[in-house]
């Protein structure tokens, strides 16, 4: 049997060689750096029926909100039929679209993270939005009113800048995505405890260190700070120190530098003193530490602004909470130049043979991202924050924000903090390999926190080098 199989395999290999050799030698034919979608001069055709698909990750509670606004949009443009598709989780959406692209069956619009778009761009599949955004051509709605295809100056200014510029983080200066709904990291703290011991909420890392030391004195069995995401921590520190992390062009992986070694070493020292832990090191959600009311507790927790309800202790039988939770901006290197990470889904529009589909998709995306009411309702239903500043004009949302407290309305409190730091958001460069870099720096930080011994510098250096190697191999 062995001989036969080997013979069979040899045959296949030879056949392959012949076949493959016929393919010749050419380089990939992608063009980058120029606008790949131009609005036709005739503008939008509001007559011919057209169907566009929107792939997202919304569960049933969020799709209810979306469907209501789809209905409104379809009433404005009766020839457009919008279909929302639940594509599973974010990774599922990415994998589905990567597969669909091979047969040209990708949806019109999709939820995306920047690294997904970088992947789709290998096939040059995502439409650039620059020409759409600038288009002054008018379209007529069903009720006779008109709007321009592009964004007005007010609409542009209304976007929270850090969210909006994420669309241009692909290294060629072009706009590929629109922010849909966002989240960030915030510092949750046990307000009752802080007030009782006269502690002030840290705004810088130096202050945080001092507060941790004090908490350790008050409650030696505690872990003062729990940090959820090691990756976010590393990337945010690079941004705050303005030290290189990655670049979308040229040499991608720049994070192995002195400044980064420095802060890692400092955090290693904090870990050795028992000041903090992270989700991976702790072996469970760090929110479980701050919400704990017996045994080991933490008094500060840095986690997603969208997960505020997880950072609140379980209610007593009378509905009150054992302690009040406070929320603040995450600690900074320079309190006057704040930097906080921007997360959460954006949307991208795929190129199609029929330019009308692209325009219709754009009109829908524009509608969702600039509509105060949609942004407000979606934000309240999802726990994410809206991407436009004027959202407080929505009565419901203003009311929601006014109720903000560290108990029942903790989600509102979180949203309020996010809106107040609107000028601090940053995004990292996106390219094929940026998600690998993200994973690597998270693992790197985790590993470095636990290092001990005299040759710390050498260990840290080696770990950085290994992480860069791994990134380069996977890109």
């Amino acid at each position, binding site marked *: 049997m062995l001989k036969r199989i080997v013979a*069979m395999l040899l045959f296949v290999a030879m056949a392959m060689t012949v076949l493959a050799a016929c393919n010749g030698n050419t380089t990939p034919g992608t063009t980058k750096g120029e606008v790949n979608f131009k609005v036709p001069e005739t503008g939008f055709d509001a007559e011919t029926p057209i169907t566009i698909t929107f792939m997202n990750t919304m*569960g049933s509670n969020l799709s209810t909100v979306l469907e209501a606004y789809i209905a409104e949009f379809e009433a404005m443009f009766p020839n457009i039929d919008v279909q929302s598709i639940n594509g599973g989780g974010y990774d599922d959406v990415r994998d589905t679209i990567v*597969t669909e692209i*091979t*047969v040209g069956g990708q949806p019109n619009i999709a939820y995306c993270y920047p690294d997904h778009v970088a992947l789709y761009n290998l096939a040059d599949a995502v439409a650039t939005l620059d020409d759409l955004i600038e288009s002054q051509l008018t379209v007529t709605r069903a009720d006779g009113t008109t709007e321009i295809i592009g964004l007005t100056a007010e609409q542009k200014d209304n976007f929270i800048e850090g969210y909006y510029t994420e669309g241009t983080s692909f290294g060629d200066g072009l706009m590929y995505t629109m922010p849909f709904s966002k989240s960030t990291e915030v510092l949750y703290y046990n307000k009752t405890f802080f007030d009782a011991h006269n502690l002030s909420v840290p705004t810088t890392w130096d202050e945080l260190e001092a507060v941790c030391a004090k908490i350790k004195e008050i409650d030696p069995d505690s872990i003062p700070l729990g940090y959820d995401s090691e990756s976010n921590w590393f990337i945010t520190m690079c941004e705050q120190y303005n030290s290189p992390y990655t670049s979308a062009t040229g040499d991608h992986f720049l994070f192995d530098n002195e400044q980064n070694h420095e802060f890692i070493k400092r955090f290693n020292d904090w870990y050795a003193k028992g000041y903090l832990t992270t989700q991976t090191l702790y072996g469970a*959600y760090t929110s*479980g530490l701050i919400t704990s009311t017996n045994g080991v507790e933490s008094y500060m927790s840095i986690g997603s602004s969208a*997960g505020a309800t997880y950072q609140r202790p379980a209610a007593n039988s009378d509905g009150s909470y054992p302690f009040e939770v406070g929320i603040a901006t995450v600690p900074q290197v320079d309190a006057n130049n704040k930097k906080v990470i921007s997360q959460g889904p954006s949307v991208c529009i795929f190129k199609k043979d029929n330019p009308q589909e692209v325009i219709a998709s754009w009109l829908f995306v524009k509608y969702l991202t600039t509509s105060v009411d949609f942004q407000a309702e979606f934000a309240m239903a999802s726990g994410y924050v809206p991407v436009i500043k004027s959202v407080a004009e929505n009565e419901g949302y203003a009311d929601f924000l006014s109720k903000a407290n560290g108990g029942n309305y903790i989600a509102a409190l979180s949203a309020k903090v996010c809106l107040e730091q609107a000028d601090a958001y940053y995004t990292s460069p996106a390219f094929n390999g940026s998600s690998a870099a993200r994973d690597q720096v998270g693992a790197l930080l985790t590993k470095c926190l636990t290092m001990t011994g005299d040759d710390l510098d050498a260990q840290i250096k080696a770990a950085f080098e290994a992480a860069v190697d791994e990134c380069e191999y996977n890109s």
Partner: protein
Amino acid sequence: MSAKAMSVMQEKDLQKTSSVQRVTQIAVRVLVYAFLIAMAIIVLFPFYWMIISSLKTLDEYRLSQPTFFPQVIMFSNYAEAFTTASLGRLFVNTMIVGVSSTLLSLIITVLSAFAFARLEFKGKELLFSALLATMMIPGELFTITNFVTVTEFGWRNTYTVLIVPFLVSVFYIFLLRQNFMQIPNELYLAAKVDGTTDFKYLWKVMVPLSLPTLISITILKMMGAWNSYMWPKLVANDAAHSMITNGLRNAFTDTTGDVNYPVQMAAVAIVSAPLFLVFIFLRKYIMAGVSRSGIKG
């Protein structure tokens, strides 16, 4: 060995053996039970965990110190599971795909296993080895090619695409071949002399004799339909053809994109119940075996 034969043996043994042997017998018994019960507990634990998780609140589920019994029993998770996901539709779809793919797959498997076990043809060994070899490449690499194929066939968003591509399983052909080969050749030759056709022999003798294995294959195939996720999501993501796992995974994502696991577990428990009843029913056939038919040997 059946329980009955065992006990008969036991009685005879007891009559003629000394008390020392009797003690050993009992000790062996105790050991066997202890072993089985210990293993049963281990095997049962995840099932228990699934049930208690389905009754927890989301907060309790997220505790860093897992609880072994829900602090507050949330039967409402089950109600929520029922209302959030359109379980009925998902269930019907999955049944359609599960039953039809199991039946077709059984037929194909029986025919192929028979050819490999009983018929002589050139290249039999080579072909069988080649089939085994196909199992050695991770199936994830086939996804894109198969996706292109079914798209070209125009099969997207149909039941066909959920049933046909995975009808042939080399695993099952191999399993049934092993079983068929155990059936003594004399039976086949005798049938030949009597002028019985191959086909008749296959359905009248081999299939009944291999019933336990066929039932095992049925169970595995049905479970496959119940658990399939990635492929249905890619090729049939419209509501009309949604399968149970897809519906369940997607329905309970909460605000942060996290899954509401307790409700999801409740939903899983609900949809597993009918399947479990079917298994209990089929179990009888597996355990009844072929001993009573007395054809063998």
